[in-house]
């Protein structure tokens, strides 16, 4: 039986088990003098319990079996091959195995000329058949054993409700672990690819080198392929653009948060807050062409008119637009924490004869400061990881400069350019993307940890 048929049959069995368990619990309860009230749980819980007992062990076995059976069948087929074929290299053996599998699946074994392969394919087909049969039988036997055991467990004092509760709890835990494990998996993969990169380029050069020119040569006589991997210009470029963005976002965001939470009346707030948050919902690619086509030329013309030399793709343009984009991160979070400052603080300050702005500056901002800093750090993480705007507006040349009027490039932009187009997957050029990604990941991770820590500290303050 193929695996989806097994699954569908199993589900049908579980539904059957549910009704069986429910009926059985009613029968058990009915046989006592006091009726259903003798049951520890509602009848449906006994049904669920039977379904769980029948389903979960069977599913686990099915999962494990499916995960390992194909490799076992393959190795058994290989061990059936003649010795000289087994002595081949791994890749060649893999090719042969593929051929045998295709032959077995095609149903044209009789047409094969090579008798060894023919025999192997027949052997493989037989093994696969046995495997599927065994799997089906084992899974259903286990399901039925579980079902029968659970049925026998049904007594009025059985705590079916608690058992079901435990199963639900574990389901939740597994779901939560999936997200965590995925994160761990991504980090691991980035980490190992980076380690691979560091075998060809020294970490010292990567971390402290000031020249970024990742063109490696495919042929030895190629020109213009220096292959320097100094990431300093990229990280400086990222920091520069993020700094420009934060210079816009922090004052504007904070001031709007203060206005919204302290000065604006209800109607203005109800309208202004969602409107401000729309900024965060605009796709970054829209910001990107806005930056490249409107803001960058405008800044260049403005610079020219006052005699400044501005690159047409300047860090300033990208930073300005990115700053607008991250305003909601600062304003929305700050607004929340400022609103969370207890009214008693404001009363206390007003009662001392403080004006509104004195109260805000001396009591509310200090009280909300940890939360505000948390918001700013989240915005900073966002700015550092932002790609689309900088791809379009900041350029590709890795200049080591802190002049925002020049073109710079960022870590994210370089990752994009390293991985677009046809690439070898083991060249330092491609692997450099992973190392850059790791650097970026570590940077934003540190920022996020700091932000979360500060937010947690803030929470403790008024509890």
């Amino acid at each position, binding site marked *: 039986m193929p695996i989806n048929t097994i699954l569908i049959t199993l589900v049908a069995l579980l539904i059957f088990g549910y009704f069986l368990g429910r009926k059985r619990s009613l029968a058990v309860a009915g046989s006592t003098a006091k009726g259903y009230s003798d049951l520890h749980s509602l009848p449906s819980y006994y049904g669920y319990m039977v379904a769980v007992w029948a389903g979960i062990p069977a599913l686990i076995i099915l999962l494990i079996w499916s995960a390992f059976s194909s490799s076992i069948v393959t190795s058994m087929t290989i061990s059936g091959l003649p010795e000289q074929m087994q002595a081949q290299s791994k890749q060649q053996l893999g090719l042969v195995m593929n051929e045998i599998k295709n032959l077995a699946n095609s149903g044209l074994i009789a047409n094969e000329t090579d008798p060894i392969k023919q025999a192997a394919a027949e052997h493989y087909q037989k093994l696969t058949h046995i495997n599927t049969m065994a799997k089906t039988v084992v899974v259903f036997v286990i399901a039925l054993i579980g079902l029968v055991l659970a049925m026998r467990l049904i007594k009025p004092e059985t705590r079916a409700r608690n058992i079901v509760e435990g199963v639900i709890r574990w389901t939740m835990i597994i779901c939560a672990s999936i997200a965590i494990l995925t994160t761990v998996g991504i980090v691991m993969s980035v980490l190992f690819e980076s380690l691979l990169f560091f075998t060809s380029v020294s970490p010292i050069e990567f971390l402290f080198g000031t020249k970024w020119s990742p063109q490696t040569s495919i042929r030895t006589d190629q020109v213009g392929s220096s292959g320097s991997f100094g990431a300093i210009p990229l990280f400086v470029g990222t920091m520069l653009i993020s700094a420009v963005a934060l210079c816009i976002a922090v004052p504007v965001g904070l001031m709007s948060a203060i206005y919204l939470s302290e000065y604006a009346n209800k109607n203005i707030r109800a309208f202004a807050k969602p409107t401000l948050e729309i900024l965060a919902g605009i796709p970054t690619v829209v910001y990107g062409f806005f930056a490249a086509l409107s803001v960058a030329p405008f800044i260049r013309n403005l610079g020219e008119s006052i005699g400044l030399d501005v690159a047409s793709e300047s860090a300033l343009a990208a930073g300005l637009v990115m700053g607008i984009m991250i305003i909601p991160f600062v304003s929305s979070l700050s607004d929340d924490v400022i609103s969370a400052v207890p009214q008693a603080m404001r*009363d*206390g300050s*007003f009662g001392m*004869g403080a004006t509104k702005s004195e109260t805000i500056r001396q009591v509310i901002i200090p*009280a909300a400061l940890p939360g505000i800093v948390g918001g700013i750090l989240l915005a900073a993480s966002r700015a550092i990881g932002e790609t689309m705007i900088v791809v379009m507006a900041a350029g590709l040349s890795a200049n080591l400069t802190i002049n925002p009027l020049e073109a710079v490039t960022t870590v994210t932009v370089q990752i994009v350019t390293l991985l677009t187009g046809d690439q070898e997957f083991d060249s330092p050029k491609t692997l450099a993307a992973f190392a850059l990604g790791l650097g970026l990941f570590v940077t934003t991770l540190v920022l996020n940890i700091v932000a979360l820590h500060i937010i947690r500290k803030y929470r403790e*303050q008024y509890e």
Partner: protein
Amino acid sequence: MNEILETLPGTTTQSLQSDEPKPEAKTRDEFDVEIDGTVGQPFVDNPKMSSRNCDVFYAEKQAIFDVNVDIGRNEIIAMIGPSGCGKSTYLRVLNRMNDTIPICRTTGTHTLDGEDIYAKDQDPVLLRARVGMVFQKPNPFPKSIYDNVAYGPRLHGLTSNRSELDDLVEASLTKAGLFKEVKDDLQKPGTGLSGGQQQRLCIARAIAVDPEVILMDEPTSALDPIATAIIEELMDDLKESYTIAIVTHSMQQAARVSQRTAYFHLGRLVEVNDTDKVFTNPEHQLTENYITGRFG
């Protein structure tokens, strides 16, 4: 005032004394109509603060109806009454704290030393430095003990250098009876103190700007009996230099600390008299009902 007593329908009084809660709720509404003016001695010679024809509205809802009362110099006046009777609202009229609530509107004439505190040229911010306030829940700022007390003097520029400020902080904490306990911890956060200490810190903070009147809105309702006793003693000392108006839910506290007591009921000032008289021989039936625990 005998007239007022006579106008009270006998049935109402009886049903108030009955054990059933529902008719009582009904009779409160009936009383609402019957309170007409304030009995006792609401007025004094040469008052520190006084209010005439005070009405307060929250949006369309009227919270205080025609309150007329004087607060004498260097006295403690206690304001008692059931929850929602308007005593806290009235207290906040006296330093214009109600101005910070947008929907709140106050009318009538209110004076401090004969000066109209609701006059157009009166700055509520400066008024609040003269009429300080201590709140129900201790609300020290999340700053150090020193900075909490120094907050007001710094705002109003009361001291010209650091050592003067140090002296003022020490003097205020001493007056509030807290200095001995915190003198080594002045740089520690004020929020780390116990509830009673926090409330005394708030009192120190209020007296650091040397106000003329201190308003206390249930200052001990969040405190344990020992902390309450300390604060009550403190009030007795403070009365030498300040005029104090205190809102309290505890009649024992009103009896212990105050010289005069004002009884509020459903937004109206029912009776003002010497505290002894209010608690031994109240003039108004409603006051008697309240202090004998028939409702409230």
